[in-house]
């Protein structure tokens, strides 16, 4: 009986003393944390993808609360995954007006599919673009083009990018949150974040080849040759040509599609436009998918279907 009593008293005593110590220590070393941080973190999508530039959603929440307090705005802070909805809610929590941003999407600026840029050699090394990039130009011979080994697919946290077996190129679907992980992962800087556009209509140059036209076209039938026709036809100064490569500024582009019509190599792409009225010989060239589902692969498949997809490999050297 006595032993039990001693044990209870001793343990209880230790407990009380420790509790008192802990109480004073906790109040002395208390770290004040803005409850807003938790609130903001609740709103965020918890993808922890790093697309905002911060290591995880918590860090982003801390940064927003800090900036809201100090500068009364959230300029430069944006959660690409949550998009405008989430940012509006974050703004409400922090009593700030948030300007809506145009939604973005990752765009593959290469169309060097098996058909357009047939393989001249066969690659047998490890399936890593960054390794292959250091080793050689690629099976098709274009030193700027897609290597097709899927570093972007590995980098994507949202299941939004896949390799197409038919073309050997990656395809972005509408799960894309424009976090930019694939842009970072691509050793050839092919992927770009561009404006999704009204009704997801977009026009862009699907090529990053900076070589002279004659050299570029040798390796790939849909390469941009830098002829300048699109630059001339554009009434909005949206197109610039630097080192034999055309680039469309998505802020200035009004989606008039004039450049698409004049491009002699079909390197300018229109996505999610209604098919054009059949106009003599031009029409079958650029058939792009119906309005939905929104999928880049449709565009590519259409371009490729001109040619039989020759299953290279057997006769390659």
């Amino acid at each position, binding site marked *: 009986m006595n032993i039990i009593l001693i044990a209870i008293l001793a343990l209880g005593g230790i407990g009380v003393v420790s509790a008192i110590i802990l109480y004073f220590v906790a109040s002395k070393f208390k770290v004040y944390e803005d409850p807003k941080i938790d609130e903001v973190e609740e709103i965020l999508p918890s993808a922890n993808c790093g697309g905002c530039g911060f290591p995880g959603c918590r860090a982003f929440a801390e940064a927003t609360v800090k900036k809201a307090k100090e500068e009364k705005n959230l300029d430069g802070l944006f959660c690409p995954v949550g998009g405008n909805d989430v940012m509006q809610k974050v703004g409400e929590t922090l009593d700030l007006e948030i300007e809506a941003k145009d939604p973005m999407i990752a765009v593959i600026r290469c169309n060097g599919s098996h058909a357009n840029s047939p393989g001249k050699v066969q690659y047998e090394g*490890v399936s890593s673009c960054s390794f292959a990039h250091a080793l050689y130009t690629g099976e098709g*011979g274009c030193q700027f083009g897609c290597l097709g080994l899927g570093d972007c697919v590995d980098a994507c946290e949202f299941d939004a990018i896949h390799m197409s077996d038919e073309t050997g190129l990656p395809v972005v679907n509408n799960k894309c949150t424009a976090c930019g992980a694939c842009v970072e992962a691509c050793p050839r800087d092919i992927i770009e974040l561009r404006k999704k556009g009204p009704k997801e209509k977009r026009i862009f140059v699907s090529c990053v080849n900076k070589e002279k036209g004659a050299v570029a076209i040798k390796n790939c039938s849909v390469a941009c040759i830098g002829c300048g026709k699109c630059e001339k036809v554009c009434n909005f100064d949206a197109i610039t040509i630097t080192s034999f490569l055309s680039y469309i500024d998505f802020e200035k582009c009004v989606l008039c599609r004039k450049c698409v019509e004049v491009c002699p190599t079909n390197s300018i792409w229109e996505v999610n436009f209604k098919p054009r009225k059949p106009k003599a010989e031009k029409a079958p060239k650029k058939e792009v998918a119906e309005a939905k589902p929104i999928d880049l692969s449709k565009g590519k498949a259409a371009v490729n279907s001109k040619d039989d997809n020759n299953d290279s490999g057997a006769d390659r050297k």
Partner: protein
Amino acid sequence: MGLLKTFKLGGVHPSENKLSAQVPIEALPIPKKAFVSLGQNLGAPSKPIVKRGDEVKVGQLIAMAGGFIGANIHSPVSGKVFKIDVVLDSSGFRRPAIIINVDGDEWMENIDRTNDIVREIKASPEEIINKVKDAGIVGMGGATFPTQVKLTPPPGKTADTLIINGVECEPYLTADHRVMLERGEELLIGTEILMKALKVTKGFIGIENNKPDAIAHLSMLAKDFKGIEIVPLKVKYPQGGEKQLIKAVVNREVPSGKLPIEVGCVVQNVGTTLAVYEAVQKNKPLFERVVTVTGKGVSKPSNFLVRTGTPISELIEAAGGVPDNTGKVIGGGPMMGKSLLSIDAPVVKGTSGILLMRMDESHRKPEQSCIRCSKCTYVCPMGLEPYLLSRVSKLGNYEMAEKERIMDCIECGSCQYTCPAAIPLLDYLRLGKNKTGQLIRSRNKK
């Protein structure tokens, strides 16, 4: 002879296949058009000093070194500069090159074109290094590191031993073997010149035991040369690696991450040594080299004396053309060489061989799972764990890769050669080395 020397750690013994070992060096006809690449050395690319339409002679300086780690380039042919443009290199990238339309074969007047062997070394050590620098000599084993940089040890370090690398441990290649047999005396004088430049008294020539004729020939000639010793070595790949050769010949170990000069050694290739002899004694800059063209399907495996800038296709043509069942053309040896994307690429200073592989030899086996046999660890000459390193590279854990000393990997490929599961270990290691190197560089910048 007793037990032959070799390095202790790891190593493999691939079948030697020295098909062209008994074929004398043959001078290849001068090409009609020479494509002189401006990036023929490790480090900065060279800057052209000629322009379109200029007349050039053989041996004339046409491009200056682009930096401290850089090398001059001399015209390998005489004729008119057609243009300075980009040409396809062996990996398919377009790189700047000087294209020369060949007209005759007129040499610079100051080059001694006679076959007389000049024995007496008149130049002082400083003059030798300057001449080597002017002649644009780079390491001709394949690494193409500028030779004059190797001959000027960093302050505070001194060399006491020169080792000439006559190992040629890569299967198939015989260019160095033929040079040792046919240009033995010049090679030994070259060794003496290098010893004088480095102010060392001891010079070794390491030769693997599969070249007994070269060992016998050079041993006989070396009797007249003070301080030069021929060291026969046991046949083991990668004995031609600098660190392995030093361990084999003088039993010193280069510390991790350090250069051979740390243990007082300088290693030079046989081809480089011959080029040094020609530059110092004959005033002849580096514009031609011996290239082996070989392969089991090749009808006439040969050793050619080739001007740099000659398209590789011409070499293959001279060796009997591309056989029908060729699956792969490799620049260099089968272990470390890289397969060529285009055979129109020109010969550069670092081209030691062209290997044509048959279709049945040229494909990789399908990759299987690791069976934990630890063979890769056993054969690694640097004492690394290739399996572990390949895994951490695959998973992107480059901090761990650095801790596990991935940067010590010499990319010899012994691990991949020996792997029974055909895992592309070296590919992953190269990837990891590349990324870890970037990590270290970005950290050093900060």
